[in-house]
């Protein structure tokens, strides 16, 4: 059982890392990124492929994050030209393009068959505990670096862009640079999250990187509170608990097939999300008012 709990915590923290990345893009800067899973996928594949070619796992995780950050640059340039909703659509399309590319480029990614036997971070019986500890450390570092940004002149400009970008430009600032940097930063953590995911699960295939992952991350941000990093952490853990906990619905409802349980789980989460948006729109840790 405790092994199961550790596994849930690891998945929860991986989602937290994704949520922290997305939350600085949306919560601080107002960028609606519906393609966050692309960086998760890029990170996962990059770290898996590198480590299978003999690169030490700790290094491959870092390289995966950097590669994801670089992959954010084209999306950053799209952000300069497009308004919120159009940008959102482009990111959604970008993520699908990344997934389909991974599926098609079989020489590198083995296509739909996926990549198996990805080395773990730590071997042995306590491997997952060590994994959890390292991951927790990374999440804390991410939260710390974001905290410093939030309490800085850089962060102040980000929030100003979120509130009124035209005015920021009229005050003599090139907002383009800020947006590209933020997308690179958020994507870095998306990539690192993907790397941890692949080393934990040890098998990755394109179907694990569908748009639903992005929306799970959005859900955890909404649950936890837009713009708060504590919210990202707790929201992700709550979401994963809900996802896992609802797995047992089938035990209480006789005569329901596994497939129906899977749909029920999403229904339950949707219901909770609706309740949140009605009665606590600012999330668990948000500061009053609608975000």
């Amino acid at each position: 059982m405790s092994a199961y709990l550790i596994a849930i915590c690891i998945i929860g923290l991986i989602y937290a890392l994704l949520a922290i990345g997305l939350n600085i893009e949306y919560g601080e800067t107002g960028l609606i990124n519906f393609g966050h899973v692309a960086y998760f996928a890029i990170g996962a594949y990059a770290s898996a492929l590198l480590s299978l070619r003999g690169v030490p796992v700790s290094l491959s995780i870092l390289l995966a994050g950097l590669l994801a950050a670089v992959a954010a640059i084209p999306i950053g340039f799209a952000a300069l030209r497009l308004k919120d909703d159009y940008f959102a659509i482009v990111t959604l399309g970008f993520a699908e393009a990344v997934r389909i590319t991974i599926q098609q480029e079989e020489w590198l990614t083995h296509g739909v068959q996926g990549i198996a036997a990805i080395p773990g971070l730590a071997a042995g019986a306590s491997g997952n505990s060590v994994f959890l500890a390292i991951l927790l450390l990374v999440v804390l570092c991410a939260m710390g670096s974001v905290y410093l940004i939030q309490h800085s002149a850089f962060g102040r400009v980000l929030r100003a862009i979120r509130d009124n970008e035209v005015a920021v430009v009229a005050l003599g600032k090139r907002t383009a640079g800020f947006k590209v940097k933020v997308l690179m930063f958020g994507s870095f953590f998306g990539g690192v999250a993907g790397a941890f995911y692949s080393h934990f699960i040890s098998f990755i295939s394109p179907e694990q990187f569908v748009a639903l992952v992005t929306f799970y991350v959005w859900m955890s941000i909404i649950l936890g509170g837009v713009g708060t990093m504590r919210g990202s952490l707790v929201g992700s853990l709550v979401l994963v608990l809900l996802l896992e906990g609802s797995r047992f619905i089938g035990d209480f409802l006789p005569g329901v097939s596994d497939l129906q349980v899977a749909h029920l789980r999403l229904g339950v989460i949707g219901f909770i999300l609706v309740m949140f948006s009605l009665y606590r729109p600012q999330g668990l840790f948000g500061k009053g008012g609608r975000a």
Partner: protein
Amino acid sequence: MMLDVSDVTVSYGPFLAVDRASLQVGAGETVGLAGTNGAGKSTLFAAIAGQIMADTGRMVFDDHAITNHPAHQRARLGLCRTFQVPREFGRLSVLENLLVAAPGDRMETMWSAWFARGAMRRKTQQLTVQADGILAMLGMSGLRDLPAAGLSGGQKKLLELARVLMHRPRLILLDEPFAGVNPVRIGEVMEIFRRLKDSGIALLIVEHHLQALKALSSRLYVMDQGRVIAQGDPAEVLASRIVQDAYMGGVL
């Protein structure tokens, strides 16, 4: 001339919003721009400030050809604007609104956020002193720590002005600065503009409040249907036949 706009045209599809408009503002001069709704004033403003790119024409600011400059570069030269509908940073405090406005590229980086916090904090303290001075001059010290979204319409107008002043502008484009301002406070706002003029800042004011424009500006332009139809001494321009006609003959 500090600002020299010549033959600027802006069209939205087939509609000619600004039609070969020209205007000049001298150093330290206060110039008014009047006209009925839809005359093209705000569009011309946006073309000067760079929110809209002019289709044709030339603009020179302070010996820089700014016709093709993006908005942020024009602001950096000291050509700053306020907006008709205030664009405050609603979830930032009034003070933070001002701090964002200060030119501060070197400390507004991730690097500073992580590794140069001491320098950043010192710079922020300096800017806070400057901001407090501006807020005091505008009589807004009491609002300093409130979120900007909670201000009244008139206060938001002043906040925009305060923000622009943080930028140390040489010419401010004021887009309907009296709209939404409580009538009893219009005198105070005019006094503020006079003080800005005394400190050497040039002003170009778009306004419907013609009496205020007349009192403040040394020259006045009037636009109608995208064209500048009259210019010169404010009293004479407002009394002229062509302007009277444009205003449907009567309200003046």
